């Protein structure tokens, strides 16, 4: 039920299967090569650390089966970070038959340093010289034949994202793997000597022609300066909001709602009507709040348009390489909550779904930073589905309340971050981040990524949503809801000032974030009640899938602490808000 699968499926490896490792520096396009070679759907983006754990995939070549392993990108093989340890482990493991080492043609020097380190392990190695198109645009020319001589290994120029050179790459890798004779490991050089060697090779193979900076390069540089970087960031965020909120409302009204209400729901009503007589079961299935009515209208008509458009925007930003630039601009702000600017990436991912955001914190941050970012995302970052629900609830009624909810979310993150920074022992890492080239995202890669994510939402949100709605319909129809509501009335009606039926949102909110909001739609609330309801839902326990990933990443104790803390904070802030505003209104 998680938004994204986190488990590695153990693929069965037969002894005679060819095993190929895919390695390289971060952000050279290993994951793109991997997904093109295996046909598997893996996430890639234009910044470092997208792949935080290794992935295995099957490949086939001339009827023979093999396996390819996407090793997380590392800058060196000195085993000083968890990712490097993983990489070294794989190289030492004798079962690997060959290595495909991906090199970034726009940054050959550092990549060759890595290449020499890989060669020290003596496995048959094939080099993919990737990003050849970008290099050429930058005026970087590389003599591939000379490079093959220098490396004493095949070098295949590739543009992985457009499938250029990949067939040849696989062919060569396969040949090397099947030869079965291990190469002699090259002599291990000291770091100093290795760089000297790299310098010598660069002189022989690379020519750089001075080019006038392109528009994107200029824009990339400008976006790093406070001015005009901050205005650019503001424009980008406003455009993103416009696309998601404005576009979402349009899509919802023009396409999704009519299709669901005029076609899908009547279809289910007709089918169910043929088999079931009017009564309890009929109502649970296709009554006003039935599984096949709200269970379809909510996820598909109210939520999906926003989720889809959010992923359009997120995927575009990721592939353009803009996000690390935003990280530089917000670094001094984020450092106040104890994390460096690079962590803006998991925060922004959290506005889509917290699960990949929390997994994303694995990339190159200290444990303290991981805990802070994960807690803040779990506490106060509404996921795309919940944002859709907020817009459905508040958008037509009061845009001001909608803005207020997000303002409260920001303030809560800032305060909670400052507290966590003080409370949690340990040190935050200083920012040290490579800024990628600003690129125009590739259309096909973008569409594929949006599709993977949206499909994930449709599959993984629909089942819990229908179960939730079914459960809700059942407790409402049988009158069980009134009994439960009676028990928690002091909390809902007394402390939060919500109608007793709001209990339903609190029950369902445990399953998914948006389900804490959607039941409020039907209750005809006052503006204050809308605000309190939305704020409680915002801070409330961050859905089962997130709780699961928190347990997996940080252990039961920390995960439960986060879960309990978010529930308590939700009720505390909601109640205080209710009583303060009521009190002020009374005075006026």
């Amino acid at each position, binding site marked *: 039920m998680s938004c994204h699968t986190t488990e590695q499926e153990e693929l069965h490896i037969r002894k005679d299967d060819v095993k190929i490792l895919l390695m390289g520096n971060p952000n050279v396009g290993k994951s793109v090569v991997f997904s093109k070679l295996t046909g598997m759907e893996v996430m890639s983006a234009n910044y470092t650390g997208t792949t935080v754990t290794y992935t295995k995939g099957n490949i086939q070549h001339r009827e023979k089966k093999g396996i390819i392993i996407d090793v997380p990108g590392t800058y060196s093989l000195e085993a000083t970070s968890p990712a490097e340890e993983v990489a070294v482990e794989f190289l030492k493991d004798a079962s690997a038959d060959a290595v495909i080492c991906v090199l970034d043609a726009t*940054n050959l020097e550092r990549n060759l340093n890595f290449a020499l380190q890989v060669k020290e392990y003596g496995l048959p190695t094939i080099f993919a010289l990737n990003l050849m198109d970008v290099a050429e645009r930058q005026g*970087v020319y590389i003599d591939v034949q000379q490079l093959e001589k220098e490396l004493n290994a095949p070098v295949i120029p590739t543009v992985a994202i457009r499938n250029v050179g990949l067939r040849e790459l696989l062919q060569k890798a396969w040949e090397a793997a099947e030869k079965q004779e291990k190469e002699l490991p090259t002599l291990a050089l000291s770091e100093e000597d290795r760089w000297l060697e790299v310098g010598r090779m660069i002189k022989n193979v690379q020519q750089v022609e001075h080019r006038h900076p392109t528009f994107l390069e200029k824009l990339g540089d400008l976006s790093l300066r406070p001015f005009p970087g901050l205005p650019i960031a503001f424009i980008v965020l406003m455009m993103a909001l416009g696309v998601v909120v404005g576009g979402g409302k349009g899509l919802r009204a023009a396409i999704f709602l009519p299709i669901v209400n005029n076609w899908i729901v009547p279809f289910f009503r007709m089918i169910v009507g043929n088999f079931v007589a009017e009564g309890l079961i009929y109502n649970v299935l296709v009554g006003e709040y039935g599984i096949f009515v709200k269970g379809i209208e909510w996820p598909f008509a109210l939520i999906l348009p926003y989720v889809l458009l959010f992923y359009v925007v997120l995927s575009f930003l990721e592939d353009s390489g803009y996000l690390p630039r935003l990280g530089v601009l917000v670094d001094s702000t984020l450092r106040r909550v104890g994390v460096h600017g690079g962590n803006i990436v998991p925060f922004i991912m959290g506005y889509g779904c917290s699960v990949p955001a929390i997994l994303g914190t694995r990339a190159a941050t200290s444990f303290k930073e991981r805990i802070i970012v994960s807690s803040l995302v779990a506490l106060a970052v509404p996921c795309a589905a919940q944002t859709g629900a907020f817009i459905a609830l508040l958008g037509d009624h009061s845009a001001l309340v909608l803005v207020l909810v997000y303002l409260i979310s920001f303030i809560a993150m800032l305060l909670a971050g400052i507290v966590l920074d003080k409370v949690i022992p340990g040190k935050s890492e200083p*920012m040290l981040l490579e800024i990628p080239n600003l690129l125009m995202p590739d259309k096909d890669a973008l569409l594929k990524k949006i599709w993977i994510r949206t499909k994930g939402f449709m599959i993984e949100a629909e089942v819990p949503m229908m179960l939730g709605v079914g459960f809700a319909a059942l407790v409402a129809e049988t009158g069980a809801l009134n009994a439960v509501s009676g028990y928690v009335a002091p909390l809902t009606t007394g402390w939060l000032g919500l109608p007793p039926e709001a209990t339903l949102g609190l029950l369902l909110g445990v399953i998914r974030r948006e389900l804490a909001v959607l039941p409020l739609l039907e209750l005809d609330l006052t503006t204050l009640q809308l605000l309190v309801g939305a704020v409680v839902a915002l801070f409330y326990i961050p859905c089962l899938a997130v709780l699961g990933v928190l347990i997996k990443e940080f252990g039961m104790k920390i995960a439960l602490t986060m879960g309990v803390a978010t529930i308590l904070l939700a009720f505390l802030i909601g109640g205080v808000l209710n009583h303060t505003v009521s009190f002020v209104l009374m005075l006026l």
Partner: protein
Amino acid sequence: MALYQMKKNCKCQIEKLPCNHLLKCLGMREGMTVCVKSRQPLGGPIVIEIGKRSFAIARDVAEEIVVREVN
């Protein structure tokens, strides 16, 4: 002089790097020429350019990198 004190668009040569594994891995070495591309207010990071690559470096780290201005 510390790298962090360099003005924007100034070129300088790295004389001494602090013991920081990641700096070395990113490809920074003593003797390299770098250019400061942007600075942030409030003690934010600086962005430097080495060859065609850009790196954001936190103030704490950039203050420990000793450089000499070249023109």
